[in-house]
């Protein structure tokens, strides 16, 4: 969704936004996760973002992120998706294991052998499914997260709320998340797991309304990904009620990143100013620079 493709025609964008507005909003997806996959989650999001952007898009600025670009297709084939979504409810009890997949296949009245079509035994597919599902579900949670106050919330507050929402989505399966992290760390799966992490931090910053087009585009995503991964690991050993320790941990890390970011920015500004001052002094002394 947060593809860095520039919007081509703003008028067309607005026309599409209007046509979406005329349609009734898709209802909030139920907690039945298998259904939630099939409900189109984007219209409400893109509608909201269109509404936000319409005033500014009438000026000459063009958004860097496309909000009309359709979300990429899920990285699963339909048969894979049905197997994984029916196995998903078994994870809290049986973990990211072939047992969950087998029970899921039985729920679909398929055979015990059916999950073997999944690549590499399916454990990583199950984890990947969880990551993909919870990432795409984030955009449907905006209403309940912001309660219409997004206009007065700072980007950092939104980032914090969204990251926390994503972390809370792990609470169901938190007892199994350490084994999932271990599987994700296997070298053959690590690139895909890291890519999902990158996509998640991109999604969070996009949904929080971050529109940076400078090098901070990268540093913001990298630091958020690091913080998210650390908080996720912290959460696996968090026994506090409602994971309040994890939330405090997340807040501390985000504040630190902000402070560090401010510090780096200040140092950069200082060095830049001093550097140009030195150049000017040298020029005033007749040095040709």
């Amino acid at each position, binding site marked *: 969704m947060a593809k860095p493709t520039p919007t081509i025609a703003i008028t067309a964008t607005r026309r599409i936004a209007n046509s979406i507005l005329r349609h009734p909003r898709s209802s909030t997806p139920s907690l039945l996760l298998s259904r939630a996959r099939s409900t189109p989650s984007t219209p409400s999001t893109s509608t909201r973002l269109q509404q936000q952007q319409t005033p500014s898009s009438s000026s000459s600025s063009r958004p860097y992120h496309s909000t009309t670009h359709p979300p990429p297709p899920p990285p699963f*084939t339909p048969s*894979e998706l049905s197997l994984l979504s029916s196995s998903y409810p078994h994870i809290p009890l049986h973990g990211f294991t072939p047992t969950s997949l*087998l029970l899921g296949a039985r729920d679909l009245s398929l055979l*015990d052998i059916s999950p*073997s079509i*999944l690549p590499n035994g399916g454990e990583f597919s199950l984890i990947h499914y969880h990551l993909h599902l919870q990432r795409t579900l984030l955009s449907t949670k905006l209403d309940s997260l912001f309660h219409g106050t997004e206009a007065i919330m700072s980007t950092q507050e939104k980032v914090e709320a969204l990251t926390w929402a994503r972390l809370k989505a792990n609470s169901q399966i938190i007892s199994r998340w350490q084994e999932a992290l271990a599987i994700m760390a296997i070298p053959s799966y690590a690139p895909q797991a890291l890519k999902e992490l990158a996509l998640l931090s991109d999604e969070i910053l996009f949904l929080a309304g971050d529109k940076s087009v400078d090098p901070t585009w990268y540093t913001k995503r990298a630091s958020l990904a690091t913080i998210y991964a650390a908080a996720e690991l912290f959460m696996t050993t968090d026994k506090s009620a409602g994971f309040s320790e994890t939330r405090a941990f997340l807040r501390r890390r985000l504040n630190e990143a902000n402070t560090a970011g401010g510090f780096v920015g200040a140092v950069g500004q200082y060095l830049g100013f001093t550097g140009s001052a030195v150049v000017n002094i040298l020029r005033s002394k007749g040095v040709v620079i």
Partner: protein
Amino acid sequence: MATRSVSRRAIPLIRQCSVSQRAFSTTLSSRNTNTTSNNTTTTPEYAIPNPSRPTHFGFETVTEQEKRKRVAGVFTSVAESYDRMNDLMSFGWHRVWKDHFVSSLNPGFSPLSSTSSPTGPQHILDIAGGTGDIAFRMLHHAHNVNANPSVRVTISDINRAMLQVGKARSATLPASHQAALSFVEANAEDLSKTRPLQPILSESEQTFFDPATATAGIPDNSVDLYTVAFGIRNFSNIPAALREARRVLKPGGVFACLEFSKADKLPLFNTVYKEWSFRAIPLIGQLVAGDRDSYQYLVESIERFPSQEEFRDMIVDAGFVVAGQGYEDLTGGVAAIHKGMKPRDA
């Protein structure tokens, strides 16, 4: 692929063609009467075995019937030295592929024996499984690794000489494995005609299966897992065999194929591999097995076999569904595992 594109063009004529073929193809008419599923009417013309249709045998072009005979000849002549040759040609690596193939399918897996499978014990059909390499591994994995002794394996091959080698090798297996194993002679393009393995009485006897001597058949929706390892490229009509696999599989059943494939993604490695297969393998065949031509055919047939994506599309075309990209490359694509599932609604 020439045959396929030609027949694609002939699709509007399916009805007339298939009617005229039935007149001279005995296997076909009986197959269609046995087939109860609705795909009889939708089977494309290229997926109906036709003894006179051109296909390829290595780099030569022959008819399907001729290919069947020649493949039978090749495997009759290599049956005795088959395992030794496999080790020499692949530096023993084919064992790793086969082990991976079997463990990735995880036959006989059941979580806790308290909840036995609602669909009954697993039945595995190993097509072109002559010497039992895959079948014995399946049994070991199901019975010993997954502790599920209810899994049965049927080894099917068109060539009695290969089956006899497997039968002899199975004598060293534990009794429980032997009890779960059965050998049948069948043509993978028409599994409705089979017979139990017959002993070879005389040297001059033809060793490939003649459908006219069939005494039994594999019914529709009766198999959990259909495997074919290093066999499918020798089939005269691969689309027909894929459709036959779909017929015998239960809904949810898995088609799994281990076959040589293309290593084009790694050009340098591919060059070395091609040199090895075209220069060394026929030579090894000549020195060890005393049969250069059979191994020349082997490398040519690998070269002619479709690429990973093309073969995946053939599997999908036959009515299977796939997960992910539908295949897994082994050793840079020298071999590949293709898997497909017969969907529930079929």
